[in-house]
């Protein structure tokens, strides 16, 4: 079975074209703020990307869209690598003299909606900061897109089969349903983007920042820091509020929006996953706020509550933005926030982490463990709201969770070669694998520049693996993947 396939080439070339076209935005910004070197180099890259893409698509004929699971994984990982590679080029050729690994890191950080950074905020031109933010936004879009189309077939993404919920009228054939749903999902994402942008415009900052922050927060990536050209953003309670709200909105299961748009608000509000997610945020937010209010007499109680909920949503949605120095916060709060980003957001959203849906099933798996010890011969499936969770799904979630932790531990071991102390070595892969981009220890501002180039490269792979639910990354290491005739493994 050949691995280089025509349809793969067409897909990768499409990615190239889309990225090339989207580079027009940083080009416009570069033009406006007179970053001429960046303008010209980005224009060249855009032209070449689009050109090569069109060329390939011209020569390679369209193929019927059928592929096996293992091919799908390969396409996924190669597409991600291609997207990151193309995205790294504007940084590299910008004339700022960045090391290539740093450019790769920034690109990966964008596409995986992590938003960690290695290029300091005073060292990055405005146009490239906008490019970073735009890649975050595209990363979020891609995840929404992939969740409906590919992830269900591959059994990843942390949401149970949505065909029942997504289907519109019963008479539609499946393919039409799928493309209809895809369009709806993309539209919802677009609407959220436009809404946030409009709400950020009157905040008193330059529209540049309104766009920059919209892209990065609506994709639950974080906040891009930039201070070139004397421009800086002023954070007001209003802007913080907008960030919080839209991070939250992007982190809930998009099914809810589907149901609202179909005129079924009751069903939307009954969604179990979103309800549990909201409870998690409320309880954690209250705890954090109360502790902050109690510990920090400088802020008013209202401010503490605001900060408390903001940072709770920031971590729970795996965005990872902050507006204060959190390194000095009480340990309990820090630990709680780490758990929140581990749990992550809901399935079928731009958030990452283990996802609330899986957490619910894991809880039932553990409590069934108790039941089995009291009644060893009982046969009792896991039932959530009168729907049985299949043994297959439970096994899949079990494997995934174990893989998640094993991969995390492996990355901490590999990262420890950088010799930066236990706290940072444990915190950085945690921030990367949950695509939060920020954590504690030396990375509490999201700055990953403390790591060696080896460390940065390693963490970029951890970010990619985390975004693609690790399987897509791990299949590359499975021998039976490369050799289909191998029976054992």
């Amino acid at each position: 079975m050949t691995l280089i396939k025509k349809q793969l080439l067409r897909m990768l070339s499409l990615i190239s074209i889309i990225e090339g076209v989207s580079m027009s935005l940083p080009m416009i910004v570069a033009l406006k703020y007179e970053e001429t070197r960046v303008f010209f180099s980005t224009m060249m890259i855009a032209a070449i990307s689009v050109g090569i893409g069109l060329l390939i698509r011209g020569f390679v004929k369209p193929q019927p869209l059928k592929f096996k699971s293992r091919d799908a994984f390969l396409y996924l990982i190669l597409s991600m690598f291609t997207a990151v590679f193309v995205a790294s080029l504007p940084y590299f050729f910008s004339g700022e003299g960045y090391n290539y690994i740093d450019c790769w890191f920034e690109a990966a950080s964008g596409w995986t909606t992590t938003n960690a950074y290695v290029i300091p905020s005073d060292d990055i031109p405005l146009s490239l900061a906008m490019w970073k933010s735009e890649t975050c936004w595209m990363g979020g879009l891609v995840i929404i897109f992939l969740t409906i189309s590919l992830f269900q077939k591959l059994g990843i993404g942390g949401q149970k089969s949505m065909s029942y919920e997504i289907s519109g009228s019963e008479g539609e054939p499946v393919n039409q349903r799928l493309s209809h749903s895809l369009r709806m999902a993309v539209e919802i994402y677009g609407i959220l983007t436009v809404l946030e942008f409009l709400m950020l415009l009157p905040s008193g900052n330059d529209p540049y920042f309104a766009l920059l922050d919209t892209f990065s927060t609506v994709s639950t990536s974080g906040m891009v820091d930039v201070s070139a050209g004397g421009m800086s953003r002023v954070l007001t309670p209003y802007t913080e509020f907008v960030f919080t709200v839209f991070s939250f909105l992007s982190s809930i299961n998009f099914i809810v929006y589907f149901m609202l748009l179909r005129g079924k608000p009751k069903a939307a509000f009954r969604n179990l996953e979103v309800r549990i997610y909201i409870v998690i945020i409320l309880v954690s937010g209250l705890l954090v706020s109360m502790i902050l209010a109690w510990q920090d007499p400088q802020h008013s109680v209202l401010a503490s509550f605001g900060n408390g909920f903001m940072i709770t949503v920031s971590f729970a949605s795996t965005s990872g933005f902050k507006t204060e120095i959190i390194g000095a916060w009480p340990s309990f709060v820090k630990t709680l926030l780490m758990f929140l980003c581990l749990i992550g957001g809901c399935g079928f959203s731009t958030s990452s982490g283990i996802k609330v849906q899986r957490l619910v099933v894991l809880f039932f798996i553990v409590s069934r463990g108790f039941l089995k010890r009291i009644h060893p011969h009982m046969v009792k499936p896991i039932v959530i709201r009168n729907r049985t969770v299949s043994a297959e799904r439970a096994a899949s979630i079990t494997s995934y969770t174990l893989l998640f932790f094993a991969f995390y531990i492996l990355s901490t071991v590999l990262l420890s070669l950088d010799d930066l102390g236990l706290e940072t070595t444990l915190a950085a892969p945690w921030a990367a694998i949950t695509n939060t981009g920020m954590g504690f220890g030396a990375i509490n501002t999201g700055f990953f520049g403390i790591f060696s180039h080896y460390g940065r490269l390693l963490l970029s792979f951890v970010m990619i693996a985390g975004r693609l639910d690790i399987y897509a990354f791990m299949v590359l290491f499975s021998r039976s993947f490369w050799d289909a005739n191998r029976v054992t493994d």
Partner: protein
Amino acid sequence: MTVNIKNSCYIIGIMIGILGICLVPSVIVAVIYGETPEAQALTITLLLCLVPAVIVYIINKIRKEKLTRIKARDGFFIVTAAWLLYSAITAIPFVVTDSIPDFIDAFFEMCSGYSTTGSTILTDVESLPKSMLFLRSFTHWLGGMGIIVFTTAVLPSIGIEGQMIAANETPGPTNDKIWARYTDNSRNLYTLYFVITIIETILLMLGGMSLYDSLVQTFGTVGTGGFSNYGDSIGHFHSLYIYWVITIFMMICGTNFNLYFVLFKRGINSMFQDDEFKMYISFYLTVSILASIDLIFKHHYSEGIAYSITSAFFHVASIMTTTGYALDDFDLWPTFAKMMLMLVFLTGASSSSTGGGPKIIRILVSLKLIRRGVSVKIHPNRIYPIKVNKKAVPTDVVTNIANFMFFYIAVLFIGWLLISIDGHDLVTSFTAALTCLGNVGPGFNEVGPVCNFSFFSPFSKLVMSFLMIAGRLELFTFFILLSRRYWNSNRA
């Protein structure tokens, strides 16, 4: 069907009596060293322990229906109650003699003893009377093989019921036994345990230790506990011979004890056919070698290569078998070497050994589950059985292992969160929870090998005490008591 409290209390009563008898060696030590107040306190505690035992014994004699009938379900209650009571009662002499005046501190120390953790709240170990230090280490010896196993070895009348109870105490996902009668099994285990104890004691004395020191260190090794009577732990002895003897014996006691019986019957090759044992040894060697390399390359030890290698092999064995002895401050190690230690924190020792942690067999099965998960994604229609020792593992057992791992992570995180209320840094809180749950002893940062646990709040100490016992009893035995359905399964 509910828990039979009366019958359970009978067994607990008998076990408290046995605890009383176990205090005798400490009394002897007190008498030898002329520590009169300690001898008195110990003797009084001893007699107090005998009282409930005698009472329940008489009651049992009088009653028509004997109280020995218990069911498997009672086992959870008996084991947990016994372990908690043992810790609480053994704390009494320490409080009364002012060795550890605060009861919560003493309770922590005793939980640490019986669970063979080895975390200490003592700031100056060497200031305690010798008999008290002896008792403290003796709890390791008792708790290592298990107080239930000890009881079933001693009291044949507990017999079959004992097996059900002991299953809740024996570390590991399945309950293998070599002999048909469980009492035989317990007796043989304890005999083997005894023999290993004596051999190590003699070997250590040959290295120049006094009998007293040798016994204390042996109890800590054989029970994979970690208490020492010296503030600098094993580093006190400055002898490569002693370091290596202890390393080897730690590894011996972290091995599946059933394998030794297999060894006697079928020779040493059969031991090396066991998948868990193979993983245990290969993992140990790999991690130790990697840690040595890091220490040597970074020139961490001025004492040279031989000491660096010794230190690596010693500390990896110490953490992996969850003993917790230290030669020096491994918190100063370079990050990679520390991460090697962190790895073995997370695996623990073999099942059916005196060690703690999640156990190698569970890690082995989890890894196979992961590999199966990845393979299933690629070939969704193939069937991949999980095989250990060439036999397929029953689905039930695999499920139990998986939900144990998840519950372990959940308890670890909750413990970590509760301890973090005290406000210490992330690594301190996390490794404090990790070390207690895994029954290791030391952690990193403020709970490193040269530190102690005295600075934690009483709340944190209680949390850690429960973590230690819960970890030793493999979680479910302990937490199931919180389930209403356990006490009354007529509840839907």
